[in-house]
């Protein structure tokens, strides 16, 4: 069989060309920021083991403008990460059915996000009150 040459179009910089791809990359990139923040938390844990004075110094260092900027960026990516996690979640599980009717994926996402928000607010409140008592 004679084989004619087909043409393969170049595939570089694919990830910036479409909105869907940009969202995907942003979602995946957010993992690095989660990881980075995990490192910060680990660092905090370490300083906690070194005693109150060292821990206090570390905490004050965190309010440096550069650090605050970093934390703001991390917060944005944590929100992106969480929201996209709940958007993706229904796609990783079998179709949920309620009395035979499929539950729309958007509803699952909304339920998850709502639970996450409620959980976060609860933790914040508890921490605030507990902190207040101390």
């Amino acid at each position: 069989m004679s084989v004619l040459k087909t043409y393969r179009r170049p595939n570089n910089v694919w990830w910036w060309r479409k909105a869907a791809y940009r969202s995907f990359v942003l979602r995946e990139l957010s993992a690095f920021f989660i990881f980075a923040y995990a490192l910060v938390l680990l660092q905090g844990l370490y300083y906690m083991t070194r005693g109150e004075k060292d821990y206090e110094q570390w905490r004050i260092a965190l309010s440096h403008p550069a650090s605050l900027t970093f934390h703001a960026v991390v917060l944005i990516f944590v929100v992106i990460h969480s929201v996209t996690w709940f958007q993706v979640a229904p796609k990783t599980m079998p179709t949920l059915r309620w009395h035979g009717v499929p539950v729309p994926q958007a509803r699952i996402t909304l339920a998850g996000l709502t639970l996450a928000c409620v959980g976060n607010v609860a933790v914040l409140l508890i921490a605030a009150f507990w902190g207040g008592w101390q």
Partner: protein
Amino acid sequence: MRIVKTDVVVIGAGGAGLRAAIAVAEKDPSLTIALVSKVVPMRSHTVAAEGGAAGVIRPDDSLESHFEDTVHGGDWLCEQNVVEYFVAHCAEEMVQLERWGCPWSRNDDGSIAVRFFGGMKVQRTWFAADRSGFHLLHTLFQTSHKFPSIHRYDEYFCVDLIVVNGHIQGVLTIEIATGEFVLFRCQSAVLATGGAGRVYRQNTNAGIVTGDGMGLAYRNGAALRDMEFIQWHPTCLPGSGILMTEACRGEGGILSNKNDYRYLQDYGLGPLDPWPRAKAMELGPRDRLSQAFWQEDRKGNTFQGPHGSYVHLDLRHLGSAKILARLPMIAEAARTFAGVDPNIAAIPVRPAVHYTMGGVAASITCATSISGLFAAGECSSVGIHGANRLGSNSLSETVVFGKVAGTQAALYARQADAYLGPLVQELAEAAQAGALSILGSGKGKSYSRSTGKSIGKSTGKFIGPGDRVATLRNAMNDAMEAGVGLYRSAEGLALACNELSDLRERYRHGVALDDHSRAFNTEWLSALELGPMIDVAQDIACSASWRMESRGAHQRLDAPQREDSNFLQHSLAHFRPDAPPVIKGAPVTITRSQPASREYGGAGKRAELT
């Protein structure tokens, strides 16, 4: 040219072709099968069939009833022994498909659901939502992967059949991607190339339904039978011809004219009440419904639109739940292509050419007059549809007779002697030369083409610049729409016959192509298709001219009655390269059902639409 040696060639990989290939593989796994198709199999036109496939399963149904409905629907032009075989094997094939995974729609208890269809007394149409053909084809295509003896040749275009001493010896094809010629040498072959609806302009058919397969058999000596019977489907979108399935009416849809009047009651399909009932009003047969539209149009009772006149198909009263469950694809098609949401508005519809009742004359074993060549599906005329096909009989036909053709081709291949002489190569080379002469060389130049190997030889004489593909195609469409429409007359048919004779001449003078290359040259392939298409179109016109009566889908203004004394016979057309075909009559096999008058409508019980 490349040569591929195989036992059986199956030409066409739609419902019939795939079923035939599977049948060969199951019957005799030691036979090699070349499954040749000009498109990848899931693009075959079977995919667009919507409504369903008939098969008797209800306890209140019987083979006798299916037989009666079919013969009655065919206006007694059916080969009744073949219909008997057919109805006895439909359900078995539907069950086989189900076992292969076909997602037939179910009742709540999990049993197979069947619905009413036009012209049928009892519900017997198995369906998979409103995409039955899609599911049937994909089930067959996917199942075909189970059989290593089936070798697929996707996008190979059939140029000619190689017939020596009345026996099929091979099939010459073009590998579309490269333009290279490939000769399949075989012991037997199955022709499953579909219908010829594209000879008309307004049709429900895909671009590939060009009748060139039956045209090639015709040019090689096989007779075409009953070609004058062309089915117009009554409910298609104006302009595009996109099909609004009969299932719309099977589920209870109604047709009304511009006066909001359900006009079918004036055409022997009433009375209106009790409604719905089987075989009455919108559940009448397709020929009667299309003809009623034509009459209403003449009376000025139809709506006028940018793509011609139309009437309303109203589904609103079915409710959106039913439309979503049973007719989802229709709703989507109506929204996309007509801008109409059937939940809130009526769909504009008019008749369009849909099915070719006639085809290559074939026996109950699918054997044609070319030894070793079997035909199945829409390209064949095994004799089950007669003068008018009932909806849902043709999807069943593809699998019932696909299996027969495949089984017979396997048996034939086992016992056939291999032909060893040089004629096969010579004929293949002549056919190749003919195809290359259509391709021409250099812009604007074209050459005349060989007209048939068993009769003439390629001349290669340069005659003139030739017409564009579209010009010839449009001229053919115009001649057919004007002269060989729903209602015909002697003058109109004679005019069409002559115009098509002229077109054959013009075609012979060459086709002006822009593209003279070999690789994936679809303009060349369209030009190659046109030759046999024009021959088939001429046969339709001439057969219609021969039949001086009105029967089923063939209606003559100058002969409005059915004339059993002269015309209770098939038309058989034999190809002539330099003249219109010779048309002769052939007797109809009548076993149990004597011709009577075709009655629809009338009194009856109210039916429960399932």
